[in-house]
C-alpha cells in the first residue's frame, strides 16, 4: 500500500518554515501550490501569458534566494504577494512593460486575458467581471476573497494604507455588482429618459 505524501498535508506556513531551514522540497511544494494563484494575480497587468509565467518564475526564484528573510510571524501568502508586488513594480520600471496595460487601466479596463481564461465566463463569472476592473481593484479583491487575507495583510502586500485598501475593495464591489447585476430601477429610468430624448431629437 502506498503511503500518502505527508508534505502535501502540511500547511503553507509549516512548509515555509521548513524551506527557510533549508528544505528545497518544501519550497517546491509551496511553489506548486501557489504558481497558478500567482499567475492569476500578476496576469492582468502583463501583456501576455508568457510574460506572466516569466514573472511567476522570477518571483519564486527571488523568494528562494531570500528564503532566510522570511519571517514566520507573517503568513507565507502575505510574504509571497508582497515580494511579487515589489518585483513586478521594479520589473515594470526596468522594462517598461507597463505602457500598454497602463493605457488600458486608464480607460477603465484591462488587456484581454487571453484564450486560456476566456471560456470560463459561466463558471467564474464574478472573477471575469473582476478582471475587467482596474489592476489595483482586481488585486485587492483577489487578496481578500481569493487568498482570504485581512485588510492589514493586503495593505502590507500592496504597500498601501488600510484606508486605501478598504476604499479599493468598496469600489471593486460596486463595480463588480454593476457588471454582473441588472441595473437598478433608477438607472433604468435614467437610461429610458435618455433614449426618449435621443428619439425626440431625431
Amino acid at each position: 500500500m502506498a503511503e500518502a505524501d505527508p508534505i502535501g498535508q502540511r500547511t503553507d506556513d509549516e512548509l515555509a518554515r521548513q524551506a527557510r531551514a533549508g528544505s528545497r522540497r518544501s519550497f517546491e511544494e509551496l511553489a506548486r501550490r501557489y504558481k497558478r494563484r500567482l499567475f492569476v494575480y500578476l496576469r492582468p497587468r502583463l501583456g501576455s501569458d508568457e510574460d506572466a509565467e516569466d514573472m511567476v518564475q522570477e518571483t519564486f526564484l527571488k523568494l528562494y534566494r531570500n528564503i532566510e528573510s522570511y519571517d514566520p510571524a507573517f503568513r507565507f501568502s502575505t510574504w509571497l504577494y508582497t515580494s511579487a508586488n515589489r518585483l513586478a513594480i521594479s520589473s515594470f520600471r526596468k522594462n517598461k512593460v507597463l505602457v500598454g496595460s497602463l493605457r488600458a487601466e486608464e480607460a477603465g479596463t484591462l488587456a484581454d486575458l487571453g484564450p486560456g481564461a476566456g471560456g470560463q465566463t459561466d463558471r467564474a463569472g464574478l472573477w471575469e467581471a473582476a478582471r475587467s476592473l482596474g489592476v489595483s481593484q482586481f488585486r485587492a479583491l483577489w487578496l481578500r476573497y481569493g487568498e482570504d487575507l485581512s485588510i492589514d495583510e493586503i495593505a502590507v502586500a500592496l504597500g498601501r494604507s488600510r484606508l486605501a485598501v478598504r476604499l479599493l475593495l468598496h469600489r471593486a464591489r460596486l463595480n463588480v455588482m454593476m457588471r454582473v447585476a441588472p441595473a437598478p430601477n433608477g438607472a433604468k429610468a435614467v437610461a429610458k429618459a435618455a433614449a426618449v430624448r435621443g428619439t425626440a431629437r431625431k
Partner: protein
Amino acid sequence: MLCHLTRRMISRAEDRGKKMPGWAERHSARCGACREYARFAASLKERLSGEKPALLAAVPDFPLNEARWAEAEARRGNREVFGRRLVAHPFPVAAAALVVVAGVLILFQTVLREPSPSPEERAAALAGLRSLTAAPDDFMGIVTEAESALAKEREILERSVVSAVEYLQARLNIKIERRDPAAKSL
C-alpha cells in the same frame, strides 16, 4: 447621497466586521438598491471562493524552472562557505583588510591629494584680497561727498531762516531769540 454613504457603511461593516450605524440600517431597510448591495456584498466571499477553482483551472499549466533554483542554491552555498572561511581564518582576512586600507591611504597621499599652491597663485590670491580691502576707501569717499552736499543744503536753509527772522523783527518791531536745542529737549 444617502445611498452612497449607506453603501460605504455596508462595505465598512463587511471589512471591519462591525455593525452598521442605525441611520444606515434604517435607510437600507427602506431602499431596495442599498438592500441589494448589502446582499451582494455579504454573498461575495462565498461566491468568489466558489468560483476560484474554475478560475485556477483555466490558468494554462507551466513547469517551474527549478534548474535556476539549483543555481541559486549553489551560489548560496558558496556564500555560506565563504562566511565559514571568514570565521575559521580571521587573521589572513584581517591582514588582507589592512593591506587594502594601506593601499587606499597611499593612493590618497600620492594621487588624490591636492598639491600646495605655487608662489604665483599666492600672489594672485593676495592681490584679490587687497582689492577687497581697498573697497572701503571708495566707499568713504562717496559717503563724504554725499555729506558735503547735505551740509550745503543746511547752510542755505539756515541763511534763509535768518533773513526771514530779520525781516520779521524789523517789520513787527519785536525781538526773536534763538532757543538752545538742549533746553528745548528738556
